[in-house]
Structure formats: structure tokens, C-alpha cells
């Protein structure tokens, strides 16, 4: 009997996470890139001229964008190596489940990075901890869903082309603009301590983006596979 969409998605995600967990180096590499980037950015600005509070949202979301791209770069590499994709395509699971599984694995990967980087920013930029920070985790996850939906689809396409490493950022970044904009604005209103209702319009933008592109990318994925 054919596994359901949900169960096969989880099978694929578990497989990716198992591989990721076994070769942990990739996760640590991206993590170091993110936290190091946060520190380096602090030096890039004259701390006396610009308040750390104003810097934090921009730094956070530039770092998340590029560390996200780094982690998405490899998401289809493992399938490419041993032509394992054929194995997946032969099995009776839905093509969409392959995409959702890989996207879920990427999401957990990116969320792991965010889980460490946000406290690092709070610490290094001495932001006020407490409730806004918790909402910030939610905003980060919401944005991560959008980034991962787009990134996973374009990673699937880019890995089959000649200039894969260059193509993924070039295709994805325009799509990241609304996500990064919405998330950064929501972050700055939260960090400025203003009532979270003010961040609501940006959260609506993120939620709408996630819904539209999660569905669109899932439906588009089968078209990226050979007949």
C-alpha cells in the first residue's frame, strides 16, 4: 500500500536529517559562519555612531539570508552523488513528498542555525532579552519557511545545471526580498520594544508569502524532474 503524503515526507526528512546528523560538519560550518558574521558586522560599523539596537535587525537578516543559502546549496547534493534520486522516484511516494521532505529537513537545519544565532546577537549587541526575543524566534521561523520553500526548489533546479553554485543565489535573492524586508521590519519593531501589534502587518506579509510559495513550489517541483 502506498505511504501517505505526510508519512513519506517525514521518511525523506528523517533520511536527510540522519545524513546531516552523521556528517555534522556542514551544520557546524554554517553555524560558525553565522555567528562569526554577526561579530564581524559589529566591527564593520562605528559602534559609537550607530546604536547596536538599530544595527541588530539588519545584521540578523543579512546573516540569515546568506547562511540559509549556504545550507540550501547542498540540499540536493546527496541525491546527486549516487543517483539516489532515481531510487526515490522509483518508489511509490508522491513527487511532492520528496520536495516537502527535503524542505522540512532544510527548515530544521536553518531553524537550528537561528536557535543559536539569535541569542548570539542578543548577547553581542546587548539587546533586551525576554518576551520580544521569544516572538523573534517565531518571526525567524516564519521567515525560514519562506526562504526554505524557495531555496529548496531552486536548489533542486540549480543542482542539475552547469553553474549551480552561482545560480541558486541569483535566482533566490529576488524572492528573499519580501521575506527579509518583512522579517527585518518586524524584528526592529519588536526590539524597539514597541507593542507587538505594530509588527502585525509585516507578519501578515510573511504568512501570506509562506502560504503562496509553499504551495506554488510544492506543485512546481515535479516539473523540475525528468519525465
Amino acid at each position: 500500500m502506498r505511504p501517505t503524503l505526510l508519512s513519506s515526507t517525514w521518511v525523506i526528512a528523517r533520511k536527510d536529517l540522519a545524513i546531516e546528523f552523521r556528517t555534522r560538519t556542514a551544520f557546524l560550518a554554517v553555524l560558525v559562519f553565522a555567528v562569526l558574521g554577526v561579530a564581524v558586522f559589529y566591527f564593520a560599523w562605528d559602534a559609537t555612531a550607530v546604536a547596536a539596537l538599530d544595527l541588530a535587525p539588519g545584521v540578523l537578516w543579512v546573516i540569515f539570508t546568506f547562511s540559509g543559502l549556504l545550507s540550501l546549496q547542498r540540499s540536493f547534493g546527496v541525491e546527486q552523488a549516487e543517483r539516489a534520486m532515481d531510487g526515490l522516484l522509483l518508489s511509490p511516494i508522491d513527487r511532492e513528498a520528496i520536495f516537502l521532505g527535503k524542505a522540512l529537513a532544510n527548515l530544521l537545519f536553518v531553524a537550528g542555525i537561528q536557535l543559536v544565532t539569535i541569542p548570539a546577537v542578543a548577547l553581542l549587541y546587548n539587546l533586551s532579552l525576554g518576551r520580544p526575543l521569544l516572538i523573534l524566534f517565531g518571526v525567524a521561523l516564519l521567515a525560514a519557511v519562506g526562504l526554505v520553500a524557495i531555496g529548496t526548489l531552486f536548489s533542486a533546479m540549480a543542482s542539475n545545471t552547469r553553474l549551480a553554485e552561482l545560480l541558486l543565489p541569483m535566482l533566490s535573492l529576488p524572492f528573499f526580498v519580501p521575506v527579509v524586508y518583512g522579517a527585518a521590519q518586524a524584528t526592529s519593531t519588536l526590539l524597539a520594544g514597541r507593542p507587538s501589534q505594530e509588527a502585525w502587518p509585516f507578519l501578515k506579509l510573511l504568512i501570506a508569502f509562506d502560504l503562496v510559495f509553499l504551495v506554488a513550489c510544492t506543485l512546481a517541483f515535479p516539473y523540475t524532474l525528468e519525465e
Partner: protein
Amino acid sequence: MSSASFDDAAGRSPEAPNAPVALSITGRRFDWLLVAAVACMAVAFVRAIFFTPIEALQGAAQKIYYVHVSAAVSAYLALGIVALMSIVYLWLRDERADRLAESAGEVGLVFLTVVLTTGPLWGKPIWGAWWTWDARLTLTLFLWFLTAGYLVLRGAVDDAAMRARYSAVLGILAALLIPFIHLSVYFFNTLHPMPIVLKPDRPSLPNEMLVTLLVFFGACTVLCLALIRLRYRYAVARDALRGLESEGGDR
């Protein structure tokens, strides 16, 4: 996109045409649409340069408005064709739709380039800065990157069917993205309204200027369609040649 020109340019079944047919398609046939387009553009430019009054506050620079806005309209038309043909390709898997999307994408990038360069040229004298993150101009900037990405993607895939599928997927997703960028850009502008000396909003133009604008709209649209058709015919010949060369190769 008149269906007549659509069919006569590919007047045979969609499998790769062989040499004699391809040659006739791109032979030195008289391209009346292109001639009409050039004539219309000439009329538009002459009218704007000689027969349109100078605007009081902005001076002659205001005339850039005609070229700038008409190019934007044509760019949107071209990108609309890309999105539409992307959907048609995924639905019918007809290579002509893919070829038309490719042509419209390239022409769209040309018009976007004009919009993106004339914008700052107009902004500098009026707003005092080359780039002011004006909502529409910023939207054009991201559209430019999207279209450039589309063409780079086409260049990066060798297999024709895969190229067509990938570019169709990107074409549709890009169309879905535009409202989100539109929202972000306009949100951005309401939060940080730039110091506007003179907001060139909807054409509350005196009618001489309005007529010039409409003439430019018409001329640019015809030019856009003529360029797309010309580029489409080139693509037909190029694919025919590729078909022959690869076929010659495997013998």
C-alpha cells in the same frame, strides 16, 4: 500577440524543421511590423522633442517621463507574455510557447534596462539624487534582476526540454512574486517617505503632454511586439540549425 504572426512564424508542425523550411522563415522577408514600429517611435520622439511644451517646474527633463513610463508599460507587457507562455508551456508542452517566453523575456529585459537608466536620469534634476528608492523604480530594479536571472537560467541548462520546464517554473514563480515585492516596496515608501519636491503621480498632464504620452505608449507597444516577433523568428532559425547540427553530428 496576434495569432496570425504566431502561426506564420512557425507554419509547420512543432518538431524540428529541416533546413529549407527554416531558411524561408528567417529569409529576407519584409518585416512590416518592425517598419511600423520604427515609424511610430520616430513620430513619438519628434512629437516629444519638438511639439511638446516644456514643463514649468521641472524644465525639459520632464520629457524623460514619456520615454521612461512607456518603456515600463512595454516591459510589463513583455513580462506578462513570459508568465502566460510559461503556463501555456507547462500545460501544452509546446516548444513554440517556450520559444516565445524566451523572446519576450529578452525583450522585457531591454525595456527594463531603459526604465532603470532613464529613471535616475530624471530623478537627479527633479529629486536631487540619482537613486531615491522610489517605490516604482525599486520594483523595476527587482524585476530587472528576476528577468536577468531567468535568462541566465536559460543559458545554464543544455537540455532543451529541461530548460523549457525550468524557465517555465521560474516564469510563473516570478509572476507570483511581483505583488509581494510591490507590497514591500510600497510599505517601505510609506514608512520612509522621501522628501518629494514634485511627486510625478498619475498624469494630471495638460492635454498636449497627455497626447505625447499616449503616442509614446502606442509606439513602444508596437516596438515591443515587433522585437518579440523578430527575436522569435531568430530563435526558430537557431533551433533549426541546432537540430541540423546535432543531427549531422550523430550520423
